[in-house]
């Protein structure tokens, strides 16, 4: 069984973190980060060529994390794979004991280092979720039977701050839950009021799926301003003011993240936090500790290799 699924099922406040695979073939850093993050988080996401920059593949990185004692969340995007490759990767992941799969449409190739690439986008994230659920139930997308169905714990992302409105984003979250998402990891939250409005809309829809709120400790005011420029990101004026006025910006960034996590825990319907500190993973253990989220719950290890027994 997926450890993440058990933490969520037990109603414990979940903590996940992100690991960005390297732009080369040496995975020692991935294993090192898995060892750093495994004791303080319940699962570790492996990004799938995030921002469309070529990196070591998320499936291989997930295996490294697993072998290093972590609990991988395999991120899988529709940008680079059609339905044949996606289903193949889901079977492969399950065969390696990787159950947590974050189903994403993917960042557009325009933002990456190969903007001339042909984007696949055969399916979108909602269709990928539905397909993953169907496969878990023993059906390929075409309806053919899967003799040994993959054991999967599919999740999805949602951006509370994207258009057209918080209510619409909540409805889309509910749609993802209906399609098969068993957990949601959100875009980075700085604007607490905006996030609360989103969660109020999610609660109105009956809290259909556990929501892990995205948290990124800002390293500097500059980093925060950069994020502000990305479509769909919302950075609060207060966070910006605090980072600009900080004598030790990194310390202030950690303080901000810790305060946010404490506030997010109080938002009804929030089932955990997803800490995205790519390039600054060393900050994560401290953030988790100072947020009062240590120790992490003990979960009995069960054999998860292969198909559903």
């Amino acid at each position, binding site marked *: 069984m997926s450890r993440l699924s058990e933490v969520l099922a037990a109603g414990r406040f979940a903590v996940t973190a992100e690991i960005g695979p390297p732009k080369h073939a040496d995975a020692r850093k991935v294993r090192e980060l898995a060892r750093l993050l495994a004791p303080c988080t319940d699962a570790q996401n492996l990004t799938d060529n995030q921002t469309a920059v070529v990196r070591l593949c998320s499936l291989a990185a997930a295996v490294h994390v697993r072998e290093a004692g972590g609990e991988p969340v395999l991120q899988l995007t529709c940008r680079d794979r059609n339905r044949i490759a996606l289903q193949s990767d889901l079977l492969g992941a399950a065969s390696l004991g990787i159950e947590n799969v974050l189903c994403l449409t993917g960042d557009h190739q325009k933002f990456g280092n190969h903007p001339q690439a042909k*984007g696949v986008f055969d399916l979108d994230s909602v269709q990928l979720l539905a397909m993953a659920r169907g496969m878990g139930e023993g059906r390929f997308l075409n309806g053919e039977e899967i003799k040994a169905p993959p054991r999967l714990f599919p999740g999805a992302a949602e951006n509370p701050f994207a258009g057209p409105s918080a209510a619409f984003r909540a409805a889309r979250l509910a749609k993802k839950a209906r399609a098969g998402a068993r957990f949601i990891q959100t875009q980075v939250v700085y604007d607490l009021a905006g996030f609360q409005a989103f969660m109020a809309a999610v609660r109105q829809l009956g809290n259909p799926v556990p929501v892990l709120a995205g948290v990124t400790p800002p390293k500097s005011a500059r980093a925060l301003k950069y994020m502000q420029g990305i479509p769909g990101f919302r950075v609060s004026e207060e966070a910006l003011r605090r980072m600009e006025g900080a004598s030790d910006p990194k310390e202030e960034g950690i303080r901000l993240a810790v305060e946010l996590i404490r506030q997010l825990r109080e938002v009804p319907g929030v089932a955990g936090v997803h800490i995205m500190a790519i390039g600054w993973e060393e900050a994560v253990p401290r953030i988790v500790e100072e947020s009062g989220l240590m120790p992490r719950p003990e979960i009995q290890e069960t054999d998860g290799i292969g198909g559903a027994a």
Partner: protein
Amino acid sequence: MIVAQAKPFPELAQMLQDARRVLVAGCGGCVAVCQAGGEQEARILAEAIRLWAGEQGRPMEARAVVVPRQCEPEWAQSLGPAMDEADVVVSLGCGVGVGFLAEVRPGMRVLPGLNTSFGGGTVSPGVFEERCRMCGDCVLGRTGGICPVARCAKNLWNGPCGGSADGRCEVDPQVSCAWHQIAQRLTARGETGFLEEIAPPKDWSTAGDGGPRRIVREDLAS
């Protein structure tokens, strides 16, 4: 219509290095409407080729002709005699026109003078936008007349994605988010079912992924 735009002249000139007698073939169809490949553009291009050749000190003839539509075999065939007098043909038709002219004289070099761009139209003077990707399975009835294939950068069926901000597409802020528009239009109509319904994966086999497409109309094929 098929919207096209002229290839950069240096790219065309590169392909014309060895030419002596160039026929510039315009088309009176879509490319004339979008003022990329009609009679006037064909005349201007022939003149530009002559000027360029003159500057290079090359002996080169260039003449312009136009037919109503290069995508009609009869009209394409009618260019045969004029093509015989040239050694290189520059077609200002869309890709269909270039292909049909090349079929008229398979031994000749027929060069594309345009980059065929998309199925679209004029939204303001001099501005053309894509509206149709000719996917062979029209869904506009379900999406408020706004095409998620042609107008969403990620071809979403259950959008908008998390990069939709203030009604703009994350890929290009100049471009409206198609799903934002779909959501607004359908919500205004009171049709919010699209939010509930999980749109199933599209069958791309009609969209060119099933190989070159062919339609046989028995009622017309006699």
